[in-house]
């Protein structure tokens, strides 16, 4: 009876249900391509009632009458709620979710994981975000879009080097750049040659320049050591995992063709302000061959007692000897010239790429071709790059899969030198009275004899652009092939074995030519280059066991072998016989050298993952590395990592919270080793006499046909042990209101111990440095990602993403007795690592200051520098690292229009800005416009009272120049500038033509502006132009190539 009653009740209820149901049908399509989405979930919100769409994206769902809202969701798409009302047909268009919330990401060693399963921070950037504004290099494309990463471009010169550093530096003098992995294959992204002290010669590109951002489907950045530990020693600086366009995920059977072109024009991003009153000269007199513009007023030049025309039968004119040298009438009227503006031209960048891809039933295939042509804003600088790639993957049968990825890049760069060899010295600092562009740069009778306003310590920039040459030519192939065997062992177990063999092979030829006539001497040529071939063998065995509904077990074990062969050559020739043939065969002094290196890294690794209830994710890794660049006894080392992710929102209690869509906390610990870059025995080498005061090589062997040798002054500690990075990371990820608001926070702590570096030795020990273990550097980083969609309607959507990073990178210890390590620059000022300081700092002579930090002036009335600051001892005068970096991207989408912008705010940090100070020294900056007023230097007298010593004015005419040229500009601290800035990295307005206009072709049009400097503390120049492709990058500027601002448009065709 009781059974019967129960059945009855059930029947009644069921009957009621049935009677009140309605059927709703419709199609779910993708906003991206208008194609139907099969397998999308359609659910009555708040219930378990739901279906999935069929192959054509269609669904039919019977819903109870009291149902109010239907929820449509699909992986990688934004979930959409639609109020049912009286509708019976509901067609829905799902937008691609930029956050890719529940997506699958490629992690270390090609292991795919659900994003929510990660126990560490990883951040993805997709193709659209990378290429929106036509950036031609990866590093510029990434700016402002990720946290925990500092991107430091060296300048706006085509092919300029750029530093990407994730979570601060781990090495003082060595490599801090992340490992790049492209389609599963690690490739080199670093420069093969460092710019060293970075005060001579030209910038040297890093090999990430070979990548075409347009071919990248997505980038996943593994920031912490726990994320990258599986890659071993090469990944202690983080990993950038790049997946190129593959055709995977395309609609099956139909080729997808994408053709795009971006064209932009570049200008100098910032023009310095110049004084326009005073002529070339010194202490008020016209001196026609000085570098100074401390002469008379330009208008007074005709009154000059020596070269003025007023007393010389040439009224209103004055005599310019350089014009006479050029065979022109030397008598001219005084005028003011815009030498800076005259020199730079408008740059042009065009990027064209074609990609054809197709997904088939059994796999996918993709072919790409790209060209980037850049002409720089400085004459004779440019870049030409070709990229070609082919990629394919096919399932042979249920168990076997084959695939390959092959990439070719050809990169040619023309550069100009900076700092002490600066081509731009004259363009930046020529006297306003001198017609740099109008007066020929060489004698009419001898094109290799320069005419210039000053001594030829620097070449005339027009002459230099015409005759000097700095080139880099790279041809590169990288790629891999793999075979995979993945039988299904049982219903719950799979075992996938994958073997991949890849290579990264390139040759770069560099040529630095100072033509005959450089520095009024006979010129020099430097040919050098590298051939590098790396073979990478990777075996992984992946065993997966779904133990039960709640628990999944995954184990990956593998072996990796990475072997690199390199040959480096350098041929130096000087003293050309004549100009016009700047070839080494025309040089009278030639030296030649070659070096061969090989190194190998073999790693055995394992990765264990346990997933419980889709809520708890545990991951542990271990890797044992064997390296060739360590002492025999210490060449093998093992290090582990563990991480845990806990998706709190899977808890029943939390699931009930409507406002909370997702919540996860994560924690990880990792240890990663790092080997020495080189480990060499003591040896004898060819002596080198460059450096110091010498611009070139004053002594060259052989002398009288004889050679000489010298012991190498960098020795290697035979007891060297691996450098260890220990890191902890904690994080939380929260999403609210249907994922409309997302917050991701990471805290990480890194301690690098037993650093391997060249410990500087006291010279009296007989060697300059010992490569040994020593020193500690720690990093505390906070990273916050905030994603919001403040407005989302059918036609309008507004997204905002913020990426906030603060990194405190502090040098805890160096070697015993060692207070600092030189990174680059001059003796003073220099960029260095110093104990107790952030990394890196700037060191140089300082102002004498009192205890309150006031600048102390000389109070000796007899002294020429009476009332002027005093030069103090050298010390740390600036810190390069910023307080925080805040990147923001925002997108407004309305109908077919999208307006998006990326902003970058770097707050804090300083740099040595040589050019700003030197423009003062030369007397060309607008700072020096007022030379007639009296001045009281802001400071105190030695007795502590405020300085009241008045100098300058008509009775003391030399004082102002003395202050600038002999006091301030001889104090390095004067050159230190705060360089916080806010930049608009890109602003793009794009429009997708409605489908009905072109039935088969999607056409996107866009206009954009890039790298617009909105505000900076730094006077006169863009802060993102500096010297060095190494760890000094961003801290030291001296006649560096300028940064650029671009304006352009793009066309993108998809069919």
């Amino acid at each position, binding site marked *: 009876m009781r059974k019967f009653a129960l059945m009855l009740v059930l029947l009644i209820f069921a009957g009621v249900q049935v009677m009140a149901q309605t059927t709703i049908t419709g199609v779910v399509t993708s906003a991206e391509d208008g194609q139907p989405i099969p397998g999308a979930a359609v659910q009555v919100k708040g219930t378990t009632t739901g279906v999935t769409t069929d192959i054509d994206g269609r669904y039919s769902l019977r819903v109870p009458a009291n149902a109010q809202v239907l929820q449509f969701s699909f992986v990688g798409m934004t979930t959409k709620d639609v109020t049912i009302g009286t509708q019976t047909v509901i067609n829905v268009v799902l937008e691609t979710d930029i956050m890719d919330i529940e997506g699958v990401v490629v992690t270390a060693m090609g292991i795919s994981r659900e994003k929510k399963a990660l126990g560490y921070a990883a951040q993805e950037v997709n193709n659209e975000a990378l290429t929106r504004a036509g950036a031609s290099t990866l590093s510029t494309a990434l700016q402002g879009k990720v946290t925990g990463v500092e991107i430091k471009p060296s300048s706006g010169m085509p092919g300029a080097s750029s530093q990407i550093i994730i979570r601060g530096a781990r090495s003082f003098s060595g490599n801090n750049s992340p490992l790049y992995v492209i389609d599963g294959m690690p490739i080199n992204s670093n420069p093969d040659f460092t710019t060293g002290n970075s005060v001579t010669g030209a910038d040297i590109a890093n090999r990430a320049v070979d990548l075409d951002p347009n071919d990248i489907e997505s980038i996943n950045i593994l920031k912490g050591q726990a994320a990258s530990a599986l890659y071993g020693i090469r990944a202690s600086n983080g990993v950038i995992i790049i997946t190129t366009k593959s055709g995977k995920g395309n609609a099956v059977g139909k080729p997808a063709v994408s053709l795009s072109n971006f064209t932009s024009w570049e200008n100098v991003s910032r023009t310095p302000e110049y004084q326009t009153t005073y002529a070339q000269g010194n202490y008020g007199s016209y001196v026609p061959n000085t570098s100074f513009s401390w002469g008379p007023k330009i208008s007074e030049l005709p009154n000059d007692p020596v070269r003025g025309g007023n007393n010389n039968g040439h009224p209103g004119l004055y005599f310019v000897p350089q014009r006479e040298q050029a065979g022109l009438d030397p008598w001219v009227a005084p005028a003011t010239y815009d030498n800076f503006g005259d020199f730079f031209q408008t740059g042009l960048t065009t990027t064209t790429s074609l990609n054809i891809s197709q997904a088939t039933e059994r796999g996918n295939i993709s072919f790409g071709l790209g060209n980037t042509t850049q002409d720089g804003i400085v004459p004779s600088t440019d870049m030409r790059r070709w990229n070609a790639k082919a990629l394919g993957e096919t399932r042979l049968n249920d168990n076997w899969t084959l695939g390959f990825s092959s990439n070719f890049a050809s990169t040619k760069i023309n550069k100009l030198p900076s700092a002490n060899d600066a081509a731009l010295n004259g363009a930046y600092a020529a006297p306003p009275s001198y017609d740099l562009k109008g007066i020929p740069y060489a004698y009419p009778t001898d094109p290799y004899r320069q005419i210039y306003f000053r001594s030829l310590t620097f070449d005339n920039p027009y002459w230099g652009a015409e005759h000097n040459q700095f080139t880099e030519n790279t041809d590169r192939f990288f790629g891999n092939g793999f075979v995979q065997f993945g039988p299904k062992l049982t219903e719950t177990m799979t075992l996938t074995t994958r073997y991949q063999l890849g290579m990264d092979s390139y040759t770069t030829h560099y040529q630095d030519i100072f033509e005959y006539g450089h520095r009024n001497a006979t010129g020099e040529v430097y040919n050098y280059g590298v051939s590098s071939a790396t073979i990478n063998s990777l075996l992984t065995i992946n065993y997966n066991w779904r133990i039960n509904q709640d628990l999944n077990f995954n184990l990956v074990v593998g072996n990796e072998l990475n072997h690199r062969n390199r040959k480096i050559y350098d041929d130096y020739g000087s003293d050309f016989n004549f100009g016009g043939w700047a070839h080494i065969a025309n040089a009278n002094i030639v030296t030649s050298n070659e070096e061969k290196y090989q190194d190998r890294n073999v790693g055995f690794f394992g990765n264990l993952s346990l997933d419980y209830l889709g809520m708890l994710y545990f991951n542990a890794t271990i890797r044992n590395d064997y390296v060739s660049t360590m002492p025999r006894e210490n060449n093998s080392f093992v290090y582990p990592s563990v991480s845990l992710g806990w998706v709190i929102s899977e808890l029943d209690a939390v699931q009930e919270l409507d406002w909370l869509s997702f919540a996860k906390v994560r924690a990880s610990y990792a240890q990663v080793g790092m080997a020495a870059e080189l480990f060499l025995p003591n040896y004898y080498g060819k002596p080198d006499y460059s450096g110091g005061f010498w611009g070139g090589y004053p002594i060259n062997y052989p002398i009288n046909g004889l050679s000489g040798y010298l012991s*190498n002054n960098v020795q290697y500690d035979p007891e060297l042990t691996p450098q260890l990075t220990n890191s902890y990371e904690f994080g939380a990820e929260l999403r609210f209101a249907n994922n409309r608001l997302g917050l991701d926070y990471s805290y990480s702590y890194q301690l690098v111990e037993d650093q391997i570096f060249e410990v500087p030795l006291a010279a009296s020990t007989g060697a300059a440095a010992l490569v040994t273990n020593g020193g500690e550097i720690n990093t505390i980083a906070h990273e916050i990602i905030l994603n919001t969609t403040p407005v989302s309607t059918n036609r309008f959507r507004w997204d905002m993403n913020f990426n906030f990073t603060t990194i405190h990178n502090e040098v805890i210890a160096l070697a015993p007795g060692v207070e600092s390590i030189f990174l680059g620059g001059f003796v003073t000022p220099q960029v260095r690592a110093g104990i107790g300081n952030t990394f890196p700092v700037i060191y140089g002579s300082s102002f004498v200051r009192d205890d309150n930090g006031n600048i102390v002036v000389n109070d000796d009335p007899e002294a020429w520098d009476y009332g002027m600051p005093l030069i103090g001892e050298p010390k740390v005068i600036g810190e390069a690292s910023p307080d925080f970096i805040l990147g923001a991207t925002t997108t407004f989408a309305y109908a077919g229009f999208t307006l998006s912008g990326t902003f970058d705010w770097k707050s804090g940090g300083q740099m040595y800005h040589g050019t700003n100070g030197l423009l003062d020294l030369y007397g060309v900056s607008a700072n020096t416009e007022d030379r007639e007023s009296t001045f009281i230097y802001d400071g105190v007298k030695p007795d502590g009272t405020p300085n009241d010593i008045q100098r300058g004015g008509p009775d003391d005419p030399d004082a102002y120049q003395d202050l600038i040229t002999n006091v301030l500009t001889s104090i390095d601290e004067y050159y230190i500038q705060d360089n916080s800035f806010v930049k608009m990295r890109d602003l793009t307005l794009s429009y997708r033509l409605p489908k009905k206009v072109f039935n088969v072709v999607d056409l996107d049009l866009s206009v954009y502006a890039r790298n617009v400097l909105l505000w900076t503390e730094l006077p006169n120049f863009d802060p993102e132009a500096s010297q060095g492709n190494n760890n000094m990058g961003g801290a030291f500027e001296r006649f560096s190539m300028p940064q650029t601002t671009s304006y352009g448009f793009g066309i993108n065709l998809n069919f």
Partner: protein
Amino acid sequence: MKNIIRLLTLPVFLLMFAGCDKDTMEDINEYKNNPSDVPSKLLVTDIITRTAFTISGSDLAFYASVYSEYNVGIYNQMYNAEIRAGEPISSTTYNNMWGAAYENLYNLKIVMGKTSEGGAEAGNFQTLGIAQILTAYNVGMLTDLFGDVPYSEALQPGVIFQPVLDKQQDLYTEIFRLLNEGIANLGRETEYPSIGGQDLLFGGDSDMWIKFANGLKARHTALLALRNPNWQDVITFADLSFAEGENAAFEYDGAQTANPFYTFFTDRDYFGASQSLHDKLIERNDPRDEVFFMPYPGTEELIFAPNGSPEQAQGVYGVSALMSVTNPTYLLSYHELQFLKAEAYARLDQVAPAQTAMENGIRAAFVKVGLTVEDADAYITAEVLPRFQANALSEIMNQKYLALYEEEAVQTYNDIRRMIALGEDFISLSNPLNAQSRFPVRYSYGADDVTTNLNVAGAYGDGSYVYNQPVWWAGGSR
């Protein structure tokens, strides 16, 4: 299918396990780009070059030429040295030279080790002797300019990280020991062939090395004038040294090798012609005034730079007319030796031989700068002898001052400091800053030690000691 698996398995496992054993790894790391051993004579070649070009010829001499008023620093570092701003006290100023001197000493230590008993070339007495003399020369340059410097604990990289300072007095003992042993070794029979042309100074002529060693003994004995005057020894040693026409001079061919003062002008252009040197020459109607200077190239007027207060401007002041890409660097010149002798005789009140030696010195100095013996003799008669008769010592020192222009400036700087210690003001310097205790009485230690060696850092302090603490032989304590 199984065949494929087998085919793949073999190479994979070979790569995995054969690829990482310790022998393989060590083979991979074998360094083939440079030799791990070379014959000692090849080291000596570069030690000589580095000693001559870098230690004798370059920065140390450039700065000495500013302090001694042979040149006026008119730009950048040299300007700062001229106006005594920063450079004289900074530990970075002489750092490159400090390092080069120890680099020489380290390589000399290797050579001496190789050629001494138990070494690979034991019995190569000629090379051993040369190495000992060059060691004495480099230690001499170091201690004369820097005072107490690391020596007994130095030159052990990776073993002793912070060598202590040795007293100058002890270093002087060591210099004489090395020179005496060097002379003895050069006199010994050896089975080894002569170093020959690898010796860029004397072409393997042991007799010349012995003369050089004796000349250095004369020089250093004279520097002990305050502490241990022994002028008879100076004469004896000088007599055992170079004859007329012989010098320890390092030649430059102007192509593979270039004179440092010349290169300093082409690469840096930091010197102007010295007003006070010009005044001294004018005062004596010295024909060398015509050959020492020239207007700045491309300008017509010869403008002299005022000592201590020039404008910081290139292209304005006249420059040295002696500069040539092929001028040799003198490690020790015949004329210096003649003036050492002249001074010794004068101090021993032996006027006649003093005059002879001085006249020899002047003649050699005239020939060096392109004038003739006849020019010299006319000048001696008209200008020198009257002054010599009035004050022999003063004129000898003044003539030595003029003779050593400009590349032998370090010896002049030593003489000036030696004379200050003796209370003699024969050479008048006109930089007004000297009166404000801004004459550097020594060079500041190199930053490579100041920043890493607490012993040197302590001795360096804030660097201001360079203005008030003379070296030991000039009356100081260190």
